[in-house]
Structure formats: structure tokens, C-alpha cells
């Protein structure tokens, strides 16, 4: 949620920088955005540290206020220039190719391409440089601090990078949808991999896929590119959420369904084991008893017993159940873990 907060909150920084330079392509805008991002994070931390405001409320307090300042500034002083509130919020990727970078009168291509390219390069460089520090600080900040890694500084650095990225993306997708691009790909990737390096690579791949699919969708519908990209980001996440092997919803559901019977059989085995050879055995180890004491329905109890019999875990004489050797072994094994 911090990325959402930042993407909104850096607006006044950008507007002020724009009002000072009157130039939307000034590099000062990027710097101002980075600074405002760090300011946002500091404000949230500051509010949180007073103990008067819970952290989530602090986030929810700071970013709308800053964003409002930005919107009011635009409406008052920059309403009829190139910066308008809709564009800030929604982005206009379609115009990106028309804003070109020219050097000594030579057209070098779209400006956004260079800007985002530079940001990408910066990020990769930072990532490679601080890979293990970031890894440790994310995983265990207390330990990182203990060995002198200054996780707070890393945190602010990371948030500044986020701000810079957001301002780069502003042009393209606007402040709300950049959040989709930042959150959805990693959220989708985490269903598939455990290792951090693989996670980062897969996130990047999903990010690229999101952009390509989103653009195609926008062309097909003749609709907002930014909106379409967010939708494709959501679609990729949903697919991962539902269908990822092992951790996806469907896989988990199937596994749980089979585990439920497995678990019920184990419960039965342990139940029989606990009462084996004790005086109450005659009473406790009857099928009818399972309904009463385990709280199982008659059908469920019958099905569990049938499955356990088939697997050779229990033997049944009339109504009385007893464990086979395999059943005893299973019960003991499960109890000891």
C-alpha cells in the first residue's frame, strides 16, 4: 500500500517543480518526486512513532492530504497547461511517442523511452549493488540492523527509487495504475517460486507480459491503455492465484479435499490407538461411537471406516474396530510428529 500512497503523494512535488521550471520534461521533476516520496515515508513514520495514530491510518491520512494539495495546485495554477488532473491520475500512454527527445536538433526517439530506460538501468544497478543487503533487510530487519546494515536507510532508499519509478511511469500510466504494475506481477510471481532471484526474474517477466497484453487489449477495445494494462495485470494475477501449481486456489482445494479423508483416517487411527487395550475399548472403538464422540455424521464415519479398511489400517468385527499393524504404525508416527 506504500507504493499507492507514494504514487499519489508525490504529486505536489511534481507540480511545484513544474511551476518553477515550466517544463514538463525537466529532470528536476524526477528529483522533486523522489524527494517528495521520501518526505511521504518520513511523515508516515513520524506520525506512527507518536503512538497517536496507527500506521495504516497514518498512511491513509498523509497521502490524500498531499495529493489534494497537488490537485488544488494544478487546478489553480496549471489548469490550462499540459498538466491536468486527469492525465496525472490516468496517464496517457498514447501520446508518449509524440513527446520526443531532441538533441542538437536531431530526433532521437520518444522521450519516455529514454526516461524509463534510464530508470531501469538505475534500478538494475542498485539491485545488483545492494542485492544481499536488500534481501536481508527485507527478510529480517532486526538482524540486519544488528550487523550494522542500516535497514532504515535502505528502506528510504528503496522508497526514493519507488518514487522515481512512479514519476517515470506517470507519463505512461498515471498514478493509480502504476500501482497495478508494481504490485500485481510480484504478487503473481510469489505463487510460483521461493527463491528471491527467481522471484525477481519472474516478476519482471510478468510485468512485461502485462504491458504487452494490456496494450493489445487497449488497441482491440480502443480504450485507455493504462486501464487496460491494469486489467491485464489483474488477469495475470487472477490466473496465477487460481491455477498456480501447489499454491494456487484450485490446487490447494484439490489437495485439501484429498487430505481431508487422509486426515480423517489418521484421526480414526489415533483415536483407536489411544484407547487400545484399555478397559473402555469395547465401548470407544465402535462405529456408532464415532458418530457420537467424534461428531461425525453416520455417512462420514462409514466412509472413513471403509477407506481405512481398504487401506488395511483397521479391521472390523461386526461393529468393533481394531487397528492393524499398519494402522498402529501410522497412528504412532502421526502422534510423534
Amino acid at each position, binding site marked *: 500500500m506504500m507504493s499507492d500512497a507514494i504514487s499519489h503523494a508525490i504529486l505536489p512535488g511534481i507540480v511545484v517543480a513544474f511551476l518553477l521550471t515550466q517544463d514538463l520534461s525537466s529532470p528536476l521533476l524526477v528529483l522533486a518526486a523522489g524527494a517528495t516520496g521520501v518526505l511521504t515515508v518520513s511523515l508516515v513514520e513520524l506520525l506512527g512513532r507518536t503512538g497517536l495514530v496507527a500506521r495504516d491510518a497514518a498512511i491513509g491520512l498523509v497521502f490524500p492530504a498531499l495529493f489534494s494539495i497537488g490537485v488544488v495546485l494544478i487546478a489553480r495554477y496549471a489548469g490550462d497547461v499540459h498538466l491536468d488532473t486527469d492525465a496525472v491520475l490516468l496517464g496517457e500512454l498514447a501520446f508518449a511517442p509524440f513527446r520526443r527527445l531532441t538533441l542538437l536538433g536531431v530526433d532521437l526517439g520518444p522521450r519516455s523511452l529514454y526516461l524509463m530506460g534510464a530508470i531501469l538501468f538505475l534500478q538494475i544497478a542498485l539491485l545488483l549493488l545492494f542485492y544481499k543487503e536488500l534481501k536481508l533487510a527485507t527478510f529480517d530487519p532486526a538482524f540486519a540492523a544488528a550487523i550494522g546494515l542500516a535497514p532504515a536507510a535502505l528502506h528510504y532508499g528503496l522508497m526514493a527509487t519507488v518514487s522515481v519509478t512512479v514519476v517515470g511511469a506517470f507519463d505512461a500510466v498515471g498514478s493509480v495504475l502504476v500501482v497495478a504494475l508494481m504490485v500485481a506481477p510480484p504478487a503473481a510471481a510469489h505463487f510460483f517460486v521461493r527463491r528471491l532471484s527467481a522471484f525477481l526474474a519472474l516478476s519482471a517477466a510478468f510485468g512485461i507480459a502485462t504491458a504487452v497484453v494490456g496494450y493489445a487489449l487497449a488497441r482491440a477495445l480502443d480504450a485507455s491503455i493504462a486501464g487496460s494494462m491494469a486489467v491485464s495485470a489483474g488477469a495475470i494475477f487472477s490466473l496465477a492465484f487460481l491455477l498456480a501449481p501447489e499454491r494456487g486456489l484450485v490446487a490447494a482445494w484439490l489437495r485439501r479435499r484429498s487430505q481431508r479423508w487422509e*486426515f480423517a483416517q*489418521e*484421526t480414526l487411527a*489415533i*483415536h483407536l490407538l489411544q484407547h487400545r487395550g484399555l478397559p473402555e475399548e469395547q465401548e470407544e472403538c465402535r462405529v456408532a461411537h464415532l458418530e457420537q*464422540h*467424534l*461428531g461425525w455424521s453416520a455417512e462420514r464415519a462409514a466412509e472413513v471406516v471403509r477407506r481405512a479398511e481398504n487401506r488395511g489400517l483397521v479391521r472390523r468385527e461386526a461393529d468393533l474396530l481394531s487397528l492393524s499393524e499398519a494402522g498402529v504404525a501410522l497412528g504412532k508416527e502421526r502422534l510423534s510428529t
Partner: protein
Amino acid sequence: MTTTQPENAIEIADLTVAYRERPVLWDVDLVVPRGILMAVVGPNGAGKTTLIKAIMQLVRPAAGQVLILGRPIRAQRRIVAYVPQRGSVDWDFPTTVLDVVTMGRYGRLGWFRSPGRSERDAALETLRKVGMEELRDRQISQLSGGQQQRVFLARALVQDAEVYLMDEPFQGVDALTERAIVELLRELRARGKTVVVVHHDLQTVPEYFDWVTLLNVRRIASGPVAEVWTERNLRLAYGGRMAILAHELAPAPQLRASPAPDER
């Protein structure tokens, strides 16, 4: 010891609780007679809190049955009082000591009735009993750990229940408060109430309680302290994690279980 009446306070049969198919309690059978003061002990992750919550039906068991004074909890909520762990709530919540204690009466008020004079009076009287009367208008974050625990205890007392289930009431409490709480628990027992306490400090078990249940996912042992509090049972419950082995049952100051590394 008070005489045990024919009915049992709590009867648990074959209780199995699992979080996402991972068992936390395995086939626990437990009978708690009426009018006893019982400790539930076991290593971290042994399912002590889960046991309490399952009795209250705050978690759904995968199998098993719980009866309170012979009837399912649904019909008995009025006569069971629950003291959650102190850390489970936000103490910065805008409310006062008296207000929290009054909450103990909400169960009797139904959906729409607001607490009135009689609820307030009952809460005040209970606060007097736990020695917190002067603090009744304090906001609850301005209390010490021991005072917060007393507030929770008072909230349970004002319910005027038959069975009390308490999750670590001695957690983060000063020695003086601990004494006071023990006195209150004994008074409850003297009035024929049944008290079940999740407890961490092994050393004080024989002194404070007359009955004990050792738990480690399954029930290791349960019964009068004199019979059940043995080296063998402790070893069974704690495995190799007992800090001491030779003189564990003597009241030695360092008799504590070291926390288990794997919290379930």
C-alpha cells in the same frame, strides 16, 4: 478440597483441531470435575490456547465433542467466562476501566438493550474486589500490565459464571498482582466454581493448583497434582526441553521450560 459433585464441569471427548489440515490437538479426552482449580501446561505450540478456544467454540474442531455441565456450549454460554490473552486486544482503544468490566454483562443483555444502572453497579463492585476501584475512569492504556490483567479478570468475574477459562492470566504480571489473582482464583474455587488456567510457570503449579493437565498436541496426563505432577509426565510433555531433570519437582527457582523452537 471442595467435594466433587456428580456432574463434571467440562467433558471433552476425542477432540481434534486442525488449522489447514495441520493438527494442533490430536484426539484429546479430558474430564474436568466441578469445583477444581486446574492448570493447563505444556510447551509452546502444544495447543493450550487452542484447547481453550475449542471449548468456547471459537475455533471449529475437526472431530470430537465438548460438554459444559452436561450440555453443549451453545446452550451454556451464560455460565462460561473467558479471559483472553492480554495481548489480543488494542489497549489504546478509547474506553475506560469501568466500561471494559461492564462488557462482562453484555451477554445477558441481548441484541439491543444497553447496559444500565444494575450492570454498572455490578461492575463497580467487582472492581472493588480486584482493588481497582479508584482507577475506574482511567483509559485502559494508562494501566500497568498487572492492572490490565485485573481488568480482564474483573470482566470475567462480573459474568458470574460457573466455569472460568483463562488464557495466561499471569502473563506480564508483577509478583503482587500474581498473589492477588491467585487469591481470587481460590475464592472462586471455594464458591464451587471451576477454573481452568493456561499456565507457563511450572514452578508454581503445585502451589497454586490442585489439578493439572499436561498437554502436548495430545493429552499427556490429567488429574490431581499429587498424582500427575511427576517427572515422567513432565518429560513426556516437554521431551528433551526440560531445563532440569534431577530435582525438577522440588521448588527450585530455575524450574522453567525453555520455549520450543518450533511454534505451531
